[in-house]
């Protein structure tokens, strides 16, 4: 099935079996292997990418459902020469060990910062209040990204550093 998706700023026209998930289209068809397959069932967050600026689990979405959408995977966030401030913060804070969850953590961080900016509440947000970037808010909002190496404290520190750098 013909599907056109703008991936990391480039228009890509793909001919896909409708069964192809967005994650498999990125990894297998486009050979963009940054987004990872951890569980393939929405449980780990390793496959997190941004669709039209919003973070989702790319394993629980069909590529054909994204015809016309703009997708950003880790390959579109920064380059080795010019890292994104979130990537710099993850390096500075040592926010990973094996790195398998990291592309998802970084895309998720970008989604989180936009959600805080837009005022989306979490279960840590007081009723009616505008959310702020407290440690509790960061932990709760990153709970959809599992880190088997348990770099959680460093990830929280990296997100705080990134938010300051981007402010």
């Amino acid at each position, binding site marked *: *099935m013909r599907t056109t998706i703008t991936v990391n700023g480039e228009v890509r026209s793909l001919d896909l*079996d*409708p*069964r192809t*998930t967005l994650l498999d289209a990125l990894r297998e068809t486009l050979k963009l292997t940054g987004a990872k397959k951890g569980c*393939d*069932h*929405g449980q780990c*967050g390793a496959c*997190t990418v941004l669709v039209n600026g*919003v*973070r*989702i*689990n790319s394993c*629980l*979405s*069909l590529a*054909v*459902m994204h*015809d016309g959408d703009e997708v950003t995977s880790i390959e579109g966030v920064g380059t080795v020469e010019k890292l994104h401030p979130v990537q710099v913060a993850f390096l500075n804070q040592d926010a990973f060990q094996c790195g398998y969850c990291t592309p998802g953590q970084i895309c*998720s961080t970008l*989604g*989180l910062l936009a*959600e805080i900016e*837009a*005022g*989306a*509440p*979490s*279960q840590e*947000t007081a*009723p*009616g209040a505008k959310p702020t970037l407290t440690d509790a808010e960061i*932990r*709760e*909002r990153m*709970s*959809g*990204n599992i880190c088997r190496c348990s770099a959680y404290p460093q990830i929280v520190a990296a997100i705080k550093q990134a938010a300051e750098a981007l402010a």
Partner: protein
Amino acid sequence: MKAFTYERATSVEGAVTAAQAPGARFIAGGTNLLDLMKLEIETPTHLIDVGRLPMAEIVETPDGGLRIGASASNTAVASNATVRARYPVLSEAIVAGGSPQLRNKASVGGNLLQRTRCAYFYDTSKPCNKRAPGSGCGALEGLNRNAAIFGASHACIATHTSDMAVALAALGASVEVVGAGGTHSIPLLELHRLPGETPHIETHLAGGELITAVVLPPPPKGGQTYRKVRDRASYAGGLASVAVAGGQVALGMVAHKPWRAAEAEGALASGASPAEAIGKELAGASSLGRNDFKIPLVARLAAAAITEAKEQGQ
């Protein structure tokens, strides 16, 4: 995953017409349906994507209620200013479920129709009357710590796991449905069925009927709160939950559907204390051993939530 064809619906009428074909299914966010299709628990032959239909609006109704379009994302509903100001229990319930990534993708319609997370339903090597009618219930004598305490049958003891639906039940929501025969409205409490002898039939929707919106009446007077107990502090299905809106109380993860605690509400209205009131409700509960703990858990959880909502309302 079994092969299927895919179309993106461009109108409600077109989607409903296409859905009359055997094997056709709606897909919205896909976060539940694709999960189950990967395991071949769900095997539709045609998917009708309703995610882009113009039914994501959240608008106030002339009577002071709120109409929430079925394809609004869970995040959009939880973040909506009117929802947060007037129906805080709904916002709180939604953010108690899943992860932000899931809530960004999940729709209102799909959330209501999500299927149980009973481990035997998911394990295709085990009997399950819901997945394979007549095969038996693996949970009955198995790992049933999270089984229902209200309205279960010998055929199925699974629970409905939506957080959002519990708040909607407490708020007295109704569901707007479009089918081959036109548009009609169903009280949320009559959308889902108890398992009885046919746990594979989960709702009162006719085949191919599309949920287009959830409609809330004006909020009842008094405080509102949602409380959920689970094995982890976040990103985990519930063991039990309670939504309170004024004098209206609904319980979650205790039955095959969101459970409106009518006995408790009646007792509260005639002056019973929160603990007495929930005790009246739980007089009708039954458990199987491993899930015995749910009865005292719900007693304490609901009493605390009712007390909290009362204090807020003063």
